[in-house]
């Protein structure tokens, strides 16, 4: 019997159910996360206009740099304050 050692982390991801999709954005708090890519703000400014017109309340957030994961505090803040989040890549 040939036995080898597992080179991986041996972890298995926990799967969590997605939050259900809201039927309507009116009255919902929508977070817009700018990851700091060039022109991401152009895209998100327009989205904010459209969302506000539909009756959503928009909160803006920004990652310090697009090259690193969002800081834990920022993720927590979005999770606490928003019901929906849109992340903009752009370039």
């Amino acid at each position, binding site marked *: *019997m*040939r*036995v*080898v*050692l*597992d*080179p*991986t*982390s*041996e*972890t298995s991801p926990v799967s969590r159910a997605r939050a259900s999709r809201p039927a309507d954005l009116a009255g919902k708090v929508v977070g817009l996360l700018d990851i*700091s890519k060039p022109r991401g703000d152009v895209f998100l400014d327009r989205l904010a206009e459209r969302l506000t017109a539909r009756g959503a309340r928009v909160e803006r957030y920004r990652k*310090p*740099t*697009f*090259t*690193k*994961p969002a800081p834990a505090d920022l993720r927590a803040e979005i999770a606490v304050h928003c019901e929906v989040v849109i992340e903009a890549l752009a370039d």
Partner: protein
Amino acid sequence: MRADTGAQPARTPLADGLVAVVKRDCPTCRLVAPVLLELRASGAALTVYSQDDPGFPEGLEPVDDTDLDVSWALGVTTVPTLLRVEGGRVTGREEGWSRPRWEAFTAVAGLGADLPEHRPGCGSRTVEPAEAERLAVRYGAGRLTSRRVELGELEDEQEALFGRGWTDGMPVVAPTEARVLRMLEGTTRGPEELVAVVPPDLVPCTVEKVAVNAVLAGCRPEYLPVVLAAVEAACTDEFNMHGLLATTYFSGPVMVVNGPVAAAVGMNSGVNAFGQGNRANATIGRALQLVIRNVGGGRPGEVDRATLGNPGKYSFCFAEDEHGSPWEPLSVERGLPTGTSAVTLFAGEGVRAVVDQRSRHPESLARSFAACLRGVAHPKLALAFDALLVVSPEHARVFAEAGWSKARLRQELDELLTLPGDELVQGAAGIAEGLPAALAGTTLPKFRPGGLLIVHAGGTAGLFSAIIGGWVSGPSGSQPVTWEVRT
């Protein structure tokens, strides 16, 4: 092979008194067999363990140690070994035969009167390669906590390893317990010790997991300290391996090795330093990438989103030619003491050539370097990408003969690469790419302070140097990291 003698295998705790470990195959052991009988006759408490023939030596009721359990536990490397055991613990040890030493050790006079005074012993069976490996696995594998994966009888080994997703696309070495234990001999660190938290899955990674991946990559045990240092350096916030992996850009970790470890493990800093054919260069860089892949979970097409990537993402690792360099090594320039082994990680893309076969004066050659360095990423982009300039021996000689230090060359390049904003702004030269229009009328450096690294490597023929362009530079992207290689 274990003899089928029916004798009791050696399992009992050590008896106090004298303990001798012998094998029939050893002429010195056969020589001292009468001495052991003399010791027994003197009234000394003597237990004899036999490594190969439980019937040897006759008349001493030897204990069967053909499994070598006792020999291994006692750390016996030579036979005969004579030990003194008190309270179950070894308090004295003699190897080979020496009448004066054995007499002093046993306090019995007149031993082996017919024998020569000295005779060296033979190698213990525990140091025969096959036995040493079997014993290392038998007594060492318990230290390893990685999951054991049994390969099916009908599975091709290579196909099994590919099939589990553990390779970078090229064949790997099967990480058996024996190989991983042998790999761990390359470091003084324990297998359970934490090395780093590896992105993108942010998994705490132990020395053992690095060793398993170093085996996969084809490393020799003496490379392991370099791989460990590389993993530590890669997983710092400054180097930002997460972003480097996830980017659509070409880049991956480029490793420059400095200090005595480079020559000690046989790394290439000369002819074809970036190329194929050197095991240490090829496998050390590969081991780092396999740790990112297997432990961190960073796989192409998943978190690795490179548009094109580059072949250096298999392994891009070379040593600086310090011996032939007119300049201080990269690691020293970056703050480590001379003679310290170190790895420097740089987030680099492919290699581009600098051809200058005519410059015989440093001013001219520096202008060639600057002209080519301006092209990193795009000739109209500045401050956003670092670069690694690798100066070959024939080019370095031009600077050395003119007495130019590395600092002098860098100062010259800084001046030559101070660029007019008018040439860089969007639309200039009919090219939409470029810097914001507001920067027109200013001057800008091509590289941020500290963003140009200079090392010396390559074969002694060829008036060529090389530029390895960086990725997003500085605190918002990746900063080069220099890390000491420990044992």
